[in-house]
């Protein structure tokens, strides 16, 4: 069967499964809608959290980013896993014991203040919307690459599917579809990884394979070979890295702390029965995430080595077919700067204009049959444009795997994007229906009314997310990575102090959150979006040489400092709040999430 038919079959089958689960797990109460009834098993919650967590970016882009960043890619690997240790040890068990529905619930009650709750709602919406727009775009991109439909049509199909199970099933529907989505995405990621590992090193375990010797009998370690190839072409050594140590430290910290402060991850721990289960499900979640996160750096090494070996100094007419296929999708491009008919790859962008991405001539072909690129060439000798997503997407073809594996990657990418989008949409809808409507605007709303409000806000959130997916504002891509900084600068200090520091009061927490998130926003607008100046300020102007991605760490420290100082000069919290803190520290008697 050809790839197209396989893809339609597999994607169709997985969608049928999601819709089936949605119908089977309709939510009948707000408790089912917000926290899946509170009876999810730790294993299922671990699987669901892993799918919730791993987005289109983890599945499609991460291995590619690492392939081009080498050692520096470790910031994502450690940053997006280490946060679970903080989550398991410092947040999840206590928030579960607290036993409400949302993160603003905790902030609002612990800091006995509507202002605190509103600040938390604002932060939750800001973080979730920046994140979800990227997911809907991801759905569209997977559709357009594998199913040859327009990106916008892809976004709309994705919206309808998410709408169906998120609106009908709420957290309950989302949880069980995420379990299915995890299975699909991990299978889709690991099958090509294992095959390629065997081809390149003879070792069936990719995590070990990339530290093994090359399978051509030369007894050379794969990493030594890649280091040699990289240096030969003028890149820095693959295992060496080029970012400053301080920046690597700051980015890793911001991603870890941000992970632990992301509302859509935190709410997953409200869905289990006991405090004990919250701890265990954090362990399962990280275990399932680690399978992909330890395989991704291996895939990066395999793909990078493969790429260099297949194209460097090769006649265009002799390159493998996959090169030409991906040239057709415009993810690969070649400009023959020295007219020798051979591909030369070296550091630097190959072309200028269009953000250094090639603009392809539609019909005409070049002298060697290559796609013609109409941009102006750069002065350097690099002739190759490679989109980093290709490292995962083209892997099955590069390894010569059967068509069903290629189709599987499409289904996996969709599973990753849809599962994350659904989790975020739930946070948005519960922030609106529960935190805004029920807790602030109309406290006497009935259970039924609140459920209707939750569903309507879910529909509205899907539409807004879809709109941003179809018309992505230029800054979305830049901002998604910064959602972590925003979460680190706002929620993490407020929650941790709320649990571990009994005397922490509302004045301190509110001041800390407001100052923290403002600093992060200002730094981001100045150094990432460049709205304050005519041109984006150069990296030499960064404070302490810390990039906007790493600034979350600084903003978090500012938040902690402001919170503690303001707290020192204001009255301690009332006795009943201190009692809440005493109570959440003790695991027994968690009961189920209380409707209140």
């Amino acid at each position: 069967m050809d790839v197209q038919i396989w893809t339609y079959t597999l994607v169709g089958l997985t969608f049928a499964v999601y819709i089936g689960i949605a119908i089977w797990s309709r939510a009948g109460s707000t408790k089912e809608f917000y926290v899946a009834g509170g009876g999810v098993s730790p294993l299922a919650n671990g699987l669901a959290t892993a799918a919730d967590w791993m987005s289109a970016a983890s599945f499609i882009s991460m291995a590619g980013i690492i392939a081009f960043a080498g050692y520096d890619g470790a910031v994502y690997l450690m940053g997006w896993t280490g946060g679970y240790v903080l989550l398991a040890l410092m947040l999840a068990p206590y928030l579960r014991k607290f036993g409400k529905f949302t993160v603003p619930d905790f902030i609002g009650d612990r800091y006995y203040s509507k202002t605190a709750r509103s600040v938390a709602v604002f932060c939750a919406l800001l973080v979730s919307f920046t994140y979800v727009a990227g997911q809907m775009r991801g759905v569209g991109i997977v559709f357009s690459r594998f199913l040859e439909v327009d990106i916008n049509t892809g976004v709309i199909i994705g919206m309808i599917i998410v709408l169906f199970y998120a609106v009908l099933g709420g957290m309950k529907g989302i949880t069980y579809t995420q379990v299915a989505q995890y299975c699909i995405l991990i299978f889709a990621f690991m099958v090509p990884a294992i095959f390629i590992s065997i081809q390149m090193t003879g070792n069936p375990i990719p995590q070990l394979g990339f530290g093994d010797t090359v399978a051509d009998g030369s007894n050379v370690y794969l990493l030594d070979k890649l280091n040699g190839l990289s240096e030969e072409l003028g890149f820095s050594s693959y295992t060496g890295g080029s970012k400053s140590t301080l920046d690597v430290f700051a980015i890793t910290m911001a991603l870890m702390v941000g992970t632990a402060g992301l509302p859509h991850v935190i709410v997953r721990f409200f869905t289990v029965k006991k405090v004990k289960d919250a701890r265990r499900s954090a362990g399962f979640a990280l275990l399932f995430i680690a399978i992909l996160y330890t395989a991704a750096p291996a895939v990066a090494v395999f793909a990078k080595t493969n790429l260099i070996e297949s194209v460097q100094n090769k006649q265009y007419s002799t390159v493998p077919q996959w090169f030409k296929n991906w040239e057709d999708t415009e993810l690969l491009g070649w400009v023959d700067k020295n007219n020798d008919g051979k591909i030369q790859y070296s550091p630097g962008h190959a072309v200028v204009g269009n953000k250094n991405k090639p603009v392809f001539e539609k019909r005409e072909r070049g002298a060697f049959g290559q796609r013609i690129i109409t941009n102006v060439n750069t002065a350097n000798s690099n002739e190759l444009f490679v989109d980093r997503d290709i490292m995962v997407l083209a892997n099955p073809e590069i390894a010569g795997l059967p068509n069903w594996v290629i189709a599987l990657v499409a289904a996996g990418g969709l599973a990753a994007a849809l599962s994350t989008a659904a989790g975020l949409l739930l946070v948005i809808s519960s922030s609106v229906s529960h935190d805004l409507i029920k807790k602030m605007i109309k406290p006497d709303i009935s259970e039924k009314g609140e459920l209707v409000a939750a569903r309507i806000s879910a529909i509205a959130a899907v539409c807004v997310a879809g709109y941003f997916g179809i018309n992505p504002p230029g800054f979305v891509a830049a901002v998604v990575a910064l959602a972590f900084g925003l979460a680190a600068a706002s929620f993490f200090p407020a929650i941790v102090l709320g649990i571990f520091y009994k005397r922490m009061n509302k004045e301190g927490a509110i001041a800390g959150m407001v100052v923290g998130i403002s600093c992060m926003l200002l730094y981001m607008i100045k150094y990432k979006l460049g709205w304050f100046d005519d041109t984006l300020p150069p990296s030499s102007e960064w404070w302490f040489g810390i990039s906007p991605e790493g600034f979350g760490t600084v903003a978090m420290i500012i938040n902690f400092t402001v919170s503690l100082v303001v707290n020192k000069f204001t009255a301690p919290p009332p006795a009943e709040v201190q009692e809440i803190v005493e109570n959440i520290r003790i695991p027994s008697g968690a009961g189920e999430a209380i409707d209140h």
Partner: protein
Amino acid sequence: MENDNHKKYWKENIKYLMILLAIWFVVSYCAGILFVDQLNTITMGGFPLGFWFAQQGSIYVFVILIFVYVRLMNKLDKKYGFDQE
């Protein structure tokens, strides 16, 4: 009396937390970032050690840390009688 029990439980909990977070910091920030160049002079199979900690080892340790924490806390809950519903 009950309050005393709570305090002791919390103190032991904080002790575990500090030890586990210290390990968390050492494998990621020390081995993977601050001392990566020094560790890279040692190789383990085909891996420079610092690089391995940054891209593999720290993640394995994170998983182990959480499961160790789960075990320790389950025992602690039992010891103080907080394991019943």
